[in-house]
């Protein structure tokens, strides 16, 4: 398979990488090792670690950081930016619609059962229109590249996409370690993200809020693998980090316990999944949530970001209809393409996929984090046969996609630099405006030949540059 190399084109260095190329070529090996050790020490001191569920081992394991940045030129980014914003608008329009009149279902453009029987569809919020009609306020859109101008959306994350702290820290650490690189290259900043996030949250304050809105970040607690990110974002936004027990409902509002007494809370950026938000509305046994929260939310006393029920838009089965959403709601052609997807509950698709397993990538419909997936070309016959049995047992739990020729960028390895496959997750903010900081989080599959970039599967991260004009 041919892979698009983002730095080299037939032995020539592409323009955006010109200065980086010199930097790498003139870097002594011992200097590189020293810097890599320094980067690791910085990450550990800051405290960014990533616990992987179910893997055991060191819960404070670092996500490997690769010092070689990934670079986009301005024109490339502008097109991506337009495509991402377009998709974000369509996803929110879809959410507004399926919790309202469901025009897209009535028009027969998406099967009703796919929406209403979806586990993430919350009947408790049908008819609720959140402030500014926004259900998903932070949308992480996972993109891969297969050619100069060929980008595909792998999946949308409309609930609480994580990883943005890595985007910010990667930049911070690169600037600290290699200030000269930031003088030689004109790189668009990303450090305005926390300010934009806070503005976004404030812009969706509930109708009953008259003053400057009080925002909080709601975390399940320090046992959560993304706890670091929760505290990091709260800190940078200058808002409180709270757990469920720090908040309570009294009358028509939600309050936070403070040393100066109860303080009303207007906007909750929650990093807790829907079923745990409120034991009086969802799982009665949840200890993480706030009893009565959903009644306050549904009567306009508090905003929840993302809104309960937003997950129905990022399901892998719904994903196949996002281009249709763009056409239906916006009357535009999608700027970013989906990956062709076979849905295994359709008979024809099932037949095709079962005959072509060694070529395809198969994923669980509700899975995430790179768990429970098969990468056909990278699997042994035994692995494929075992997976085939899993599919046969429950076909509707799977979708399949062609194995994409993910682009590579140079990455530091033992012997110097070598191409490794990457993806990109930009974080789109939706409030009164739709905002996007240039770049996003680049994840890199550090194992040679691997196409799985998830940190749980041996992936690392890189700083992502968008060059100014």
């Amino acid at each position, binding site marked *: 398979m041919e892979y698009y190399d983002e730095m080299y084109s037939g032995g020539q260095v592409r323009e955006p990488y010109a200065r980086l190329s010199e930097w790498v070529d003139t870097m002594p090996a011992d200097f590189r090792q020293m810097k890599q050790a320094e980067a690791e020490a910085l990450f550990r001191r800051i405290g960014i670690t990533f616990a992987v569920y179910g893997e055991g081992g060191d819960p404070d394991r670092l996500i490997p950081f690769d010092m070689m940045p990934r670079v986009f030129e301005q024109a490339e980014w502008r097109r991506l930016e337009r495509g991402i914003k377009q998709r974000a608008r369509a996803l929110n329009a879809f959410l507004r619609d399926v919790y309202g009149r469901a025009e897209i279902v009535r028009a027969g453009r998406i099967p009703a059962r796919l929406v209403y029987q979806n586990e993430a569809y919350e009947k408790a919020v*049908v008819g609720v229109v959140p402030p500014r009609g926004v259900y998903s306020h932070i949308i992480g859109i996972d993109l891969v590249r297969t050619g100069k101008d060929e980008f595909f959306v792998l999946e949308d994350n409309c609930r609480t996409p994580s990883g943005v702290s890595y985007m910010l820290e990667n930049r911070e650490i690169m600037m600290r370690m290699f200030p000269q690189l930031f003088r030689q290259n004109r790189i668009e900043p990303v450090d305005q993200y926390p300010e934009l996030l806070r503005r976004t949250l404030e812009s969706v304050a509930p109708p009953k809020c008259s003053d400057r809105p009080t925002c909080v970040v709601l975390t399940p607690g320090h046992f959560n693998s993304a706890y670091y990110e929760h505290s990091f974002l709260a800190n940078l936004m200058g808002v409180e980090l709270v757990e469920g027990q720090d908040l*309570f*409902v009294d009358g028509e509002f939600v309050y936070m316990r403070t040393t100066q007494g109860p303080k009303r809370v207007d906007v909750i950026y929650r990093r807790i999944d829907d079923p745990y938000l409120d034991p009086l509305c969802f799982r009665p046994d949840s200890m993480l949530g706030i009893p*009565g929260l959903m*009644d306050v939310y549904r009567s306009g006393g508090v905003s929840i970001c993302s809104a309960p029920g937003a997950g129905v838009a990022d399901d892998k089965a719904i994903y196949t209809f996002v281009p249709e959403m763009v056409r239906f709601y916006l009357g535009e052609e999608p700027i970013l393409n989906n990956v062709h997807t076979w849905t295994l509950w359709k008979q024809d698709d099932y037949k095709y996929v079962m005959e072509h397993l060694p070529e395809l990538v198969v994923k669980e419909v509700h899975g995430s984090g790179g768990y429970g997936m098969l990468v056909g070309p990278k699997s042994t016959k035994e692995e494929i046969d075992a997976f085939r049995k899993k599919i046969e047992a429950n076909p509707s739990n799977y979708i399949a996609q062609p194995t994409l020729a993910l682009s590579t960028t140079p990455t530091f390895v033992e012997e110097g630099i070598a191409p490794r496959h990457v993806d990109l997750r930009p974080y789109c903010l939706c409030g009164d405006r739709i905002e996007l900081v240039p770049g996003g989080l680049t994840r890199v599959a550090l194992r040679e030949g691997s196409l799985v970039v998830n940190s749980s599967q041996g992936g690392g991260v890189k700083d992502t540059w968008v060059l100014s004009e």
Partner: protein
Amino acid sequence: MKLRVTHQTVYRYDHPIRNIVQSLRLTPSVFEGQKTLEWNIEVTGGIRGPGFRDGAGDWIEGWTVRGPMEEVAVSITGRVETRDTAGVLRGHREMINPLAYLRDSDATKADKGLRALAASVSDHADNLDLAHKLSAAVSEAIAYEPGVTESQTTAAEALKLGKGVCQDHTHALMAVARLRDLPARYVSGYLHATVDGEPHEAAHAWAEIHVENIGWIGFDAANRCCPDERYVRLGSGLDASDAAPIRGIAAGQGDERLDVAVRVEDIDKLQSQSQSQTQS
């Protein structure tokens, strides 16, 4: 029929608790079969929070009670005028697509027994017939017997026991209806019934099954009938917990004791009784 409802739920705690938050689905539905003449909800020491009509058409009210206290009573007094709509929930305004009620919860999850029960009813050209037959099959399979099941009992467990109360009948009927691809939901409400002239347990539950071209229709498998003018409908959900008239959480330690008293009386009969008493 004019029904008078008095419903009191008293929570007693052996240690004073800090506060209580409740979400009440305790207001009669609005549809052709019933008209609310008067309805009062009171929670001792409570602050009335947000009230709103949800997508299912239910009126929801949040209440909070600031502690410390050892006892909280939720009291309902009201009068409702009802009429028989042959079980059909006509004129009820709601927004949720019936297909959302094809999803299972733990209480209604199918097992071998429920699948067999669902399959025991032969195919019907008419889904209304099918729903009636399924309801009859559940009535046959589960005998009404209080005290053998509890609030956590699932449909599968109740069917295995072959005994249960209205909650169990309802869960089982929902499970078999969904297995036959009919959307089904749990309805909580009141029932005016007498056994040998004495008022009968009046807090009640039944199932609603959605039949295309008709809409939602109530089926009371425990009483082998469809709801009529003796029934007062409060609200619905995916199972008993989702449709519970009172969902609440108390902050504090110690045990909770619960006393519930419900009376649903026929106002006309009460009046004629009191008249006859004055006459005699």
